[in-house]
């Protein structure tokens, strides 16, 4: 700053006091600025632990959105796994940003309209299509893997759909647990295995045992003999049909042959 002190030599030093005072106003940035900026840019993440129907889970996020939701034995195990998987630094946050916390809580409570930002970097367009389609499945309902494959225009990619769902980075928020096998078995689950999948589905009101029994006997669709519409068994329209008017079908063909049309809500015709 010595160069600036002589900038106004004609003022007989009366301005030097002001110049020196201004120089003294230089101030170091708060320690949090650097880490917070890296998080906001998506070059580092923060995490916290939230309570869910499956118990506590770790949630990590950055400025682009939620990057992962997972179980871990403890914070060290989580942090180590995160760094290996994402190659970014991570630190525990004192709390989650309020808006994000509200959105996640609403999504976990079954509100599909709650907008949870997601960090999609490194994910293929196919994976994103699968996960976004899974978001359309309401709480309390399930769809087969083949339903997702058909809905995203890749009817033969059923196995790839399963792989993509297994790689779902934010289970619970993206409800991959609502996707089951067409034969009625609930299938695998990335967040702690099939037992957890059963727990979370039951918490959402799905009669998992009843669903498995039904599919075990080969009955995959439920119709109403008053509306002549057939649905997937957990569709909200199917659950409204009273026992007296309920009809079961083994196949889409059987239903259509008997004069039933596919439900426009659960679109079962693509599920076979």
């Amino acid at each position, binding site marked *: *700053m010595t160069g*600036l002190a002589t900038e*106004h030599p004609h*003022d007989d030093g*009366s*301005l030097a*006091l*002001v*110049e020196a*005072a*201004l*120089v*003294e*106003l*230089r*101030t*170091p*940035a*708060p320690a*949090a*600025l*650097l880490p*917070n*900026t*890296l998080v*906001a*840019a998506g*070059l580092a993440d923060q995490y916290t632990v939230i309570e869910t129907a499956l118990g506590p889970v770790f949630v990590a996020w950055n*400025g682009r959105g939620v990057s992962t939701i997972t179980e871990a034995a403890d914070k060290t195990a989580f942090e180590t796994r995160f760094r290996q998987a994402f190659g970014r630094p991570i630190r525990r946050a004192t709390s989650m940003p309020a808006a994000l916390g509200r959105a996640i809580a609403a999504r976990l409570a079954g509100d599909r309209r709650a907008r949870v930002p997601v960090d999609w970097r490194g994910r293929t367009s196919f994976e994103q299509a699968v996960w976004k389609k899974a978001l359309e499945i309401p709480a309390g309902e399930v769809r087969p893997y083949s339903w997702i494959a058909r809905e995203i225009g890749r009817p033969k990619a059923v196995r790839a759909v399963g792989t993509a769902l297994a790689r779902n980075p934010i289970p619970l928020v993206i409800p991959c647990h609502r996707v089951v096998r067409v034969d009625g078995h609930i299938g695998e689950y990335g967040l702690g295995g099939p037992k957890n999948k059963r727990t979370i589905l039951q918490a959402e009101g799905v009669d998992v045992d009843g669903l498995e029994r039904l599919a075990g006997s080969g009955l995959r669709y439920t119709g109403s003999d008053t509306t002549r519409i057939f649905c997937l068994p957990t569709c909200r329209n199917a659950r409204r049909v009273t026992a007296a008017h309920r009809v079961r079908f083994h196949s889409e063909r059987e239903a259509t042959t008997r004069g039933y049309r596919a439900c426009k809500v659960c679109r079962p015709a693509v599920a076979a």
Partner: protein
Amino acid sequence: MDDELPGLLARDLDGAFERLVREHQHRVYTIALRITGNSSDAEEIAQDVFLRAYRALAGYTRERARQLRLRPWLATIAVNLARNRLRRHRPAASDIDSLSQAEVPRANGGTPQVELARRETAAHWQRLLADLPDRYRVPLVLRYVDELTYPEMTEVLGMPSGTLKAQVHRGLHLLRAAHDAAEREELTA
């Protein structure tokens, strides 16, 4: 420091961005703090400056990123954001950091009395600076607090060096007069 960094940012933005923040965070924060007079506003603005820089760099060609003059470029973003903040919400005197919050560089080994005196002095000058019209305050901050050259200030503020020199000179005189008036007031109180 600017010689090497633009090239690094052009080659590997994600890898070099942390260095950009490390090297420029204090000056960007100080510019925002001394224009707005409010430390929480300044922290938000400084973060926003770097985010905007990151997004801009992500869209630049390598050549354009390599040719960036980071000091005036970041100062331009900081000044614009700080001015926008003031336009939306000109702080009442009570919003300007009080003495207890007045942020000044910590002196090594100073006694509590010396530290308090430094804080009082900094708060005094910050108040005088905050009372200056924008056209004087911003050039003074860039010239003395951020130590930009006049050609760099021309890049930031889009005004000729001669005009900026006149504004700086006038601003110094106004500050000096305000300081003298404050001292007289204190003596007669």
